[in-house]
């Protein structure tokens, strides 16, 4: 099975005041196409930093990352942006919908960035899939937390990504809503063959994935699956 994400000897250090903070230390793992993968760990273990680096949102200090066959160190910021637009989807803990755009407009931004024609039609289909077609013209502030995350899911899958990064996707939701979101996430993962990388401290959620790693103080403590 070919690798959609390959991380090798990854290290990252941030400067905090006078001190260097070693957030990730020699981390290596890989994710197969269509595979679901969880990164678990307690707060401050470095899991969000790892997700950001894997998605090309930040640059590495040491080590190498290959995303969709491309070495991220060989791309500049705009190059990584294009790679994200064509291959990557995101779901954030606090939804991160653009507050000045309607639900439909939020969903179709990735499509419009790719220059897709009839993006609105496609956006409506996705909103229908997450059960929010009737809220297409509503702004994020007019939607509940669960609804916002469903819009975020529709946006994440709108460009049929090869890989989707989800940062605590249910962290800001109640149990029932969280469960519905998880269901949708895995459903879309299966349906579109999208690899799923989830950062979570919810072990129950991690158990549902094909493979997971546990981080502690920037190092992989355990690999499951």
């Amino acid at each position, binding site marked *: 099975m070919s690798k959609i994400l390959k991380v090798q000897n990854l290290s990252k250090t*941030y400067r905090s005041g006078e001190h260097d903070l070693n957030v990730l230390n020699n981390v290596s793992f890989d994710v197969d196409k269509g595979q679901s993968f969880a990164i678990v760990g307690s707060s401050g273990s470095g899991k*969000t*930093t790892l*997700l*950001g680096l894997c*998605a090309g*949102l*930040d640059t590495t200090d040491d080590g190498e990352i290959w995303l969709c066959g*491309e070495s991220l160190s060989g*791309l500049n*910021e*705009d*190059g990584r*942006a*294009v*790679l*994200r*637009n*064509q291959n*990557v989807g*995101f779901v*954030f803990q606090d939804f*991160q*919908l*653009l*507050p*000045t*755009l*309607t639900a439909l*407009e939020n969903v179709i*931004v*990735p499509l*419009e*960035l*790719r*220059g897709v024609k009839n993006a609105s039609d496609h956006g409506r289909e996705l909103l229908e899939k997450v059960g929010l077609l009737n809220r297409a013209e509503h*702004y994020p*502030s007019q939607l509940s*937390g669960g609804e916002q995350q469903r819009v975020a899911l529709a*946006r994440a899958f709108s*460009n049929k990504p090869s890989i989707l990064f989800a*940062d605590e996707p249910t962290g800001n939701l109640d149990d029932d809503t969280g469960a519905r979101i998880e269901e949708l996430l895995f459903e879309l993962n299966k349906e579109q063959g999208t690899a799923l990388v989830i950062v979570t401290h919810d072990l129950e959620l991690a158990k549902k994935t094909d493979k997971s790693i546990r981080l502690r103080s920037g190092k992989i403590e355990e690999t499951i699956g």
Partner: protein
Amino acid sequence: MGKNNAGFLWLLKMAWRDGKASYGKLLLFVFSITLGVAAVVSVHSFSRLLKENIALQSKSLLGADYVIESDRPVNDKVQGIMDSLGGSDAKEINFLSMAAFPGNNGTKLMEVRGVEGGFPFYGDLETNPSSAKTSFKAGGALVDATTMLQLNLKKGDSIKLGAVTLPIAGALENVPGSTSVFGAIAPPVMIPFQFIQTTGLVQTGSRIEYKYYFKADEGQDMALLSEKVEPVLDAEDADLDTHLSEARRLGRRYENFGKFLNLVGFIALLLGCVGIASGMGIYVQMKVKSIAVLKCLGASKKQSYLIFFVQIACMGIVGGLLGTIIGYGLQQLFPVLLGDLIPVEVDMALSLQSIVLGLSLGLAMSVLFALYPLMKTLYVSPLQALRVVQETQTRSKRATLLVGFGIISFVFGFSYWLLDDSLRSFFFVVGLLVVFLILTAVARLFMAMLKRFFPYSWGFVPRQSLKNLFRPQNQTLVLVLAIGIGTFLISTLYFTKDMLLEKAAIEDSANSANMILMDIQSQQVEDVSNTIEASGMPVIDKISIVTMRVETLNGKYVEDIRKDTTSQVGRWILNHEFRVTYRDSLIGSEKVIEGKWVNNFNSDKDIPISVSSDFANMAKVTIGDPVSFNVQGRIMNTVVQSIREVDWSRLQPNFSVVFPSGVLENAPQFSVMTLRTPNDDSSAKLQQKLVSDFPNVSILDLKRILELLEDILAKIGWIINFMAFFSIFVGVAVLMGAIYSSKHQRVKQGALLRTLGAKTFQILKMIAIEYTILGFLGALMGVVLAVLGSTLLAWMLFDTTFVPSVIPFAIILPAITFLVFALGVGNSVGIVRNSPLAVLKKEKE
């Protein structure tokens, strides 16, 4: 890796989507640009229309196509030129003289105009009744309409001019070529030409003007006529004025005032732009998360930058367009504010040039000033969507320098376009930079000092207020700038007006003159003096005047200097008939700046004279240079012995050339006397007596002139204040924008404080203290800078000591502080209106 495929249309779409959701904030930015553009467009458009209308109406301003004029009867050579031009179509003799109105014992200094022929050929001689404009030619006088009203005169009453008494044929409402400002000092009275000699007023010393009006043939080239005839006329002490040169001269007079107002408007626009820059900074700060998300979704740095750039550009265009429309409306007010100070009826129209100016100014200024805050979008990391990131870089130094250079270049370029003078534009930009830098430094220093010496022992409410002044995203800098600049402008204008009036004011002491008698013949001096003293008023000064023209300068004849195209000597020196006095001492309005003053001279050598610095500059002479004068046919050789600086603004007789005692005593001369009248009643009685006994003597009542000057300054002051208040309006818009931009943060802070137990009153008090401090600091800095600026003006331009009036401190400072307080509190009431729960719930969502 290629690019994403979203094109310009997508950028427009995104800018529109984002903009429509943030229209409240954007509208305030638009408002700031709108007011600034309106100020510039209204002044620029009005100045241009005035110039165009002057050019269009140039013939009716002169009353003819061209005029040949001289201050003495024309000689054969000039007569020959006029004959070769087909002979004049009309002629006029005019001079100043006292007019008496026997019916009511009134007297007035008037400009007597004896006219013959069909003048005016263009424009209208407006009279009441209208038949009077022809009937007066049979032997009547047309008297200035305002004078008729003031002295309660009516048609049929008599007017006495020297030895002639004529019935008033009607009121003169408008004469082509007469300016209202001069007309207010000596209003016109028009009589038939044949009565001029019989008045007996054409005597030595009288300033008499001989005018010959010409109607040109269709298509005659005025420029060519000037080129051919003017040098010959110059040599004969005559002058040619074509309707085109008259329009240029008038245009220049109003142009300078227009340029000044344009700069005031431009400052208002700059102020609006500072508001935009600050508002944009806060706006971009609020958009950081959205920008990060967009980058996560694949938008490039350039795309995320351009979305906001397009918004700013659209705001600039909308602001420019609205500003142009408002500016067009505003310019309709200018003729009302300026009244009769403008010489022509201005036909108001909106021109393409004004629209282009408004739009391009709105666009260029908003984009230029938004570039710096917008640069931040380039450095927003997509990681911000996941977590709070410590920003290592927000703007590149090179780009910051480039933007700064762009702004300064644009401001300089635009000032140069307005002023057409690179040195003045340079000083304008430097002055502006200094004011901006001082205000910025004071605001920053204030924040630093507040942090360093924070009064921890104070109560909770004042402590919170003070903390708001230096919290992140505070408004201290932008508000101190906006309020400071507005107050600075208003206070400087107030101080300058004060200085001008102060300089012109007549000293209220017993030995300073408030009346000047002119054109007193030698044989009348004693009798006039006796008449004055018999009325119980002492003569303060008797000044003898000898008229003369420059014959040679440094050994070179004036005719030769005129022909020398490389000569820098001013035409005024070559053509003017100088009124020269002689005395043995300096007077209060002058001081020697070079050479040595000579009291008395009694020798056959060259006469040591004193010249004013203006004379020396224009004649290009210095100490020791020989100058010869033609004194009514006799040549007098002199040498420049001293150069004086003369304060011409003092209302008293001042002279360009002064001879020492002992030389001119026996030359043909006339006199000027100054005296002080204790009150209006005795002044009127003395004037009646003098006019009746000495009809050729002209009387200048300095009190009336000062009143007139005050009236003119008041009118000009109106329009200047009007423009300065625009800066305040823009300041208010910037203030509202700043309050609105930080409202979100304040609402949250207010809700949290109320959750923790703060009362509504305490929160409002907090806001009130904060804005009162900001208003006071900004306004105080504005007034202090105005004092510094006015002191510099007094020293460099007015050559006087500046004593600031208390008005800006006592009225402007508290008024602006209150305005800021009221706006701040008024706009913040919404903060305490919502329940804390609703605010916090919304915040959570």
